[in-house]
């Protein structure tokens, strides 16, 4: 594993991809000033841009229920959590922009035009307060597991350094989700019924967040951006959350869920069509989510223009 104390060494170059791979395999850390292979730059940039987009759109998913928070302190808490997500997007867009593939504005405009992607779960709408809790409990946990697996190795230095903070905050969000779920699980019949319905809506999207099985030669694994295969992360998630949810008395909406002789839980066959639909911007709430963001971006262009005239870049 790399350490964050690794000194940035800029301006290095490699003879070819084999030479670069040897550097990665020896525990090397790539820095922005390095003459990294274009293949690596493109893959890592696309991955970080996807992560940044997902943080921003995650914030937009959570914002819908903040006005209805059932208490002032809860409103503060959910605001702070959503602010963290926007803050993560802010950090990640800066890291991605430093790779000189696209500027931050270009990334945002691609996102708002539907030209770039973000996580499947943020193409869904939270329809009750319990969905807000399901996002905090299920989605944040899935995101945390996924990001922690990237942080574990992550050969791109700037990304690893911001992930240290992001993973720490996401871990806090996950604990917050657990506390919020506990309130519903030990609450009134209304609350328990609300959460069961939310679980029915969010279980499969959360499981699908890890993506289909990794390709045998996934370059992100080969270049040690990812440290674990998608299917392994997904299996660990199912293994952890099925017994927890059963323990709270909730039912997992998977008729073919089974437990093997060793006590391990296995999800039934996964229908990947909903995930593919989100990647085509055809998810249940993709259109509204993108249109809201795009319209707002257009409506507030005058602010950015005014600051540009002042010489304050945004």
């Amino acid at each position: 594993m790399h350490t964050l104390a690794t000194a940035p060494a800029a301006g290095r170059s490699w003879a070819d991809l084999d030479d670069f791979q040897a550097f990665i395999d020896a525990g090397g850390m790539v820095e922005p000033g390095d003459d990294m292979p274009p293949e690596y730059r493109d893959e890592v940039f696309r991955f970080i841009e996807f992560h940044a987009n997902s943080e921003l759109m995650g914030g937009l998913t959570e914002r819908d229920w903040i006005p209805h928070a059932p208490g002032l302190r809860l409103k503060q808490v959910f605001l702070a959590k959503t602010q963290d997500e926007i803050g993560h997007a802010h950090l990640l867009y800066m890291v991605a922009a430093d790779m000189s593939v696209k500027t931050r504005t270009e990334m945002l405009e691609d996102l708002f035009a539907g030209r770039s992607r973000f996580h499947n779960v943020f193409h869904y709408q939270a329809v009750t307060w319990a969905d807000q809790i399901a996002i905090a409990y299920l989605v944040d946990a899935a995101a945390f597991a996924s990001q922690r697996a990237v942080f574990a190795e992550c050969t791109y230095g700037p990304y690893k350094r911001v992930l240290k903070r992001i993973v720490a905050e996401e871990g806090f969000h996950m604990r917050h989700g657990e506390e919020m779920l506990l309130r519903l699980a030990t609450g009134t019949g209304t609350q328990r019924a609300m959460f069961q319905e939310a679980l029915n809506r969010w279980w499969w999207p959360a499981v699908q967040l890890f993506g289909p099985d990794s390709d045998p030669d996934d370059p992100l694994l080969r270049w040690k951006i990812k440290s674990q295969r998608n299917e392994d992360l997904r299996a660990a998630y199912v293994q952890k959350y099925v017994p927890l949810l059963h323990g709270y008395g909730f039912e997992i909406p998977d008729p073919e869920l089974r437990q093997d002789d060793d006590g391990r839980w296995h999800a039934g066959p996964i229908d990947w069509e909903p995930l593919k639909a989100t990647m085509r911007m055809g998810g249940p709430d993709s259109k509204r989510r993108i249109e809201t963001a795009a319209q707002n971006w257009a409506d507030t262009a005058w602010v950015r223009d005014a600051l540009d005239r002042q010489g304050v870049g945004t």
Partner: protein
Amino acid sequence: MTYSAAVRDYLLAFADDEHLVGARHTSWIGLGPFLEEDLAFCSIAQDELGHAIGLYGLLLADVGELDTFALLRASQDYRSCWLAEIECRDWNDSLVRHWLYDRAEALRWEALAASPDADIAALAARAQREESFHLAHADQFMSRVAANDTSGRIVDSIRRLAPVAAGIWDATAAESDVLAEGFVTDSSADLAARWNDQIRADIARWGLAAEWSDAGVVAAQQHRTQRSEGFDAFHDDLQRVLSLDTAATW
């Protein structure tokens, strides 16, 4: 601390203003004009809600649980001003409200910081530290945007919001008793005069072509007992979850 009915009404007006303006500010989370501003405005919203919690907390010893009190009262029992209640759909309106409101808020905390009541003075001292950042944010943002706003949106927002903003200074019905008790020494009219001077100076400093007169308080607020158009929908939004099951702990 047991407060007189007059002081309770006076503090409730400020608490409701802080609560509702904070709640309105939250509508920009994720939709700020750029990411840095998104983060800053969200922090301001959290601070205002925190101020509301502090003020409600002073009133609640014999009133009841915070969230029920803050969210489930009948609309006629709120004492908010209309500037805090209204929806600002455009960023320019929200920015101008932020500037006008925080200018006034700082003066209100300053007055409370001088109160002989130790609890409110301590709360005010804490809020003043946060308020200095809110004022700096409003000043820096307005000074930069206003000078370069070729669209005229800022000036339009000032013209549109000025009459509503003056309602901040609509005193609660028994404010004279609050002054007579010595809880505060500055009346709303005193603070309004200073606020008008500050607003006029800001407009001049930023070179805005907006006339500012010492507009009178909105009579229709009737000492903050009347709610603005659109309040009921806002109130329904605020209490949507809490009212689902009042026996529940959320």
